[in-house]
């Protein structure tokens, strides 16, 4: 907000501080705009889902048809096909929660009047990635025991001197790389997408208001790009939610893979 005020004379491109939008209080526990969006999305999802599943009929109506479509995508195309039909059931609530929560939060980046992608604040994707992290570590240790879990990190049949190296690499992958990449991928996509939208919107606005002569016309392609990227963001919103649960399923599926 401050940037727009100061941009009266000279154009200031959108940057990270634009995402810091405290509403109440300051500091580490300030109530921010993204928190409100997150709580709103959670509330809407909980209410809508509970209400929509209250009266399910074997022959679905239109609303139930879409709900079942999304549920079927998460349950069958990802959960069952990746984790395997023997073990996927306990993880369906987790995957469905992740998918709907990420998708709706991402869509909030382009839906007026919210127009703020929650996942561009890294705390939220980190929270979700931590959930996945805990689940696949706990499931792995429960299935094989701590020793078995650690032994299973290294594929059998390696020369003995390679084993410690591979073990360390795999341990780092399991404990650090996976949750971090899961977090960063979602965060980065939403952050960058929103920066682009801001750039086209603010740049077009600046050109229109402060441009010299014909330069005002350049705001037209800027606004056009804004609309195009808004449409593109819908695709990204869906894709990132999909990729997130896809990778979560792959990590969980490894727990049940008999070989490494």
């Amino acid at each position, binding site marked *: 907000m401050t940037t727009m005020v100061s941009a009266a004379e000279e154009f200031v491109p959108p940057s990270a501080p634009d995402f810091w939008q405290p509403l109440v209080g*300051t500091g*580490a526990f300030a109530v921010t705009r*993204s928190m409100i969006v997150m709580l709103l999305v959670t509330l809407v999802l909980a209410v809508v889902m509970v209400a929509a599943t209250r009266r399910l009929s074997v022959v679905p109506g239109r609303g139930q048809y879409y709900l079942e479509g999304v549920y079927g995508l998460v349950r069958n195309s990802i959960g069952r096909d990746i984790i395997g039909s023997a073990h996927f059931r306990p993880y369906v609530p987790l995957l*469905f*929660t992740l998918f709907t929560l990420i998708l709706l939060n991402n869509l909030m980046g382009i839906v007026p009047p919210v127009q703020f992608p929650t996942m561009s604040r890294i*705390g939220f994707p980190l929270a979700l990635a931590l959930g996945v992290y805990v689940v696949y570590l706990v499931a792995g240790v429960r299935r094989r025991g701590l020793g078995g879990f650690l032994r299973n990190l290294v594929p059998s049949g390696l020369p003995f001197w390679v084993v410690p190296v591979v073990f360390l690499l795999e341990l780092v992958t399991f404990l650090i790389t996976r949750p971090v990449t899961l977090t960063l991928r979602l965060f980065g996509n939403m952050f960058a997408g929103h920066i682009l939208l801001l750039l086209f919107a603010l740049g077009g606005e600046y050109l229109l208001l402060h441009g010299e002569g014909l330069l005002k016309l350049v705001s037209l392609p800027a606004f056009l790009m804004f609309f195009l990227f808004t449409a593109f963001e819908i695709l990204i919103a869906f894709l990132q939610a999909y990729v997130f649960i896809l990778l979560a399923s792959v990590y969980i599926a490894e727990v049940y893979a008999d070989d490494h």
Partner: protein
Amino acid sequence: MSALSDVTAAAEGGDGGFWEDAYPVIPHPGELIVGIISFLVLYVVYRRLVVPRLEKLLAERRKGIEGGIERAEAMQAEAKAALEQYRAQLAEARTEAAQIRDQARAEGQQILEELRAQAQEESARIVARGEEQLAANRQSVVNELRGQIGALAVDLAGRVVGESLEDDARRRGTVDRFLDQLDGMAPGTPGDGRTGSSVFVPGGDR
């Protein structure tokens, strides 16, 4: 740690405090907590209510479809059984028809045989009666001829001899004797009753 010190340095320059100029990859604790709480709340709601309801629906639907398949299979089996039954009945009817036909044929044969036997019997009877009648006729003819021949012979003899044999009784005796003599002259002549003159009647006829 170096990142944090950078951030702190950057924060000194800004006017919105540390978090305005912090690197965007540093999670805001409040947001992280809200994210975890929201995630857990929604997870519990889904796990308790939403997913069980949807799973129940899927199970019901699967059961419905399986029930439908079972019903269809039962109906198919029923239709098959009915078809088998009809086929059996048809085969039975065919054999029955064949039996009836055979029986009818046999009966016809029997009737034919009977008729033939009857006709043969009839014809034999007719032949026998004809023969009888023939024999009777011949007998009467023989008898008649015998009388006439006798009279003629006596008449002839009387004329030849010149005397009239008036006594009938004597005359008859003579003729009979004569005829008996004729019979006696040819006792073993074969076929004398048919090929020879009807005068020479075999003696057995009398």
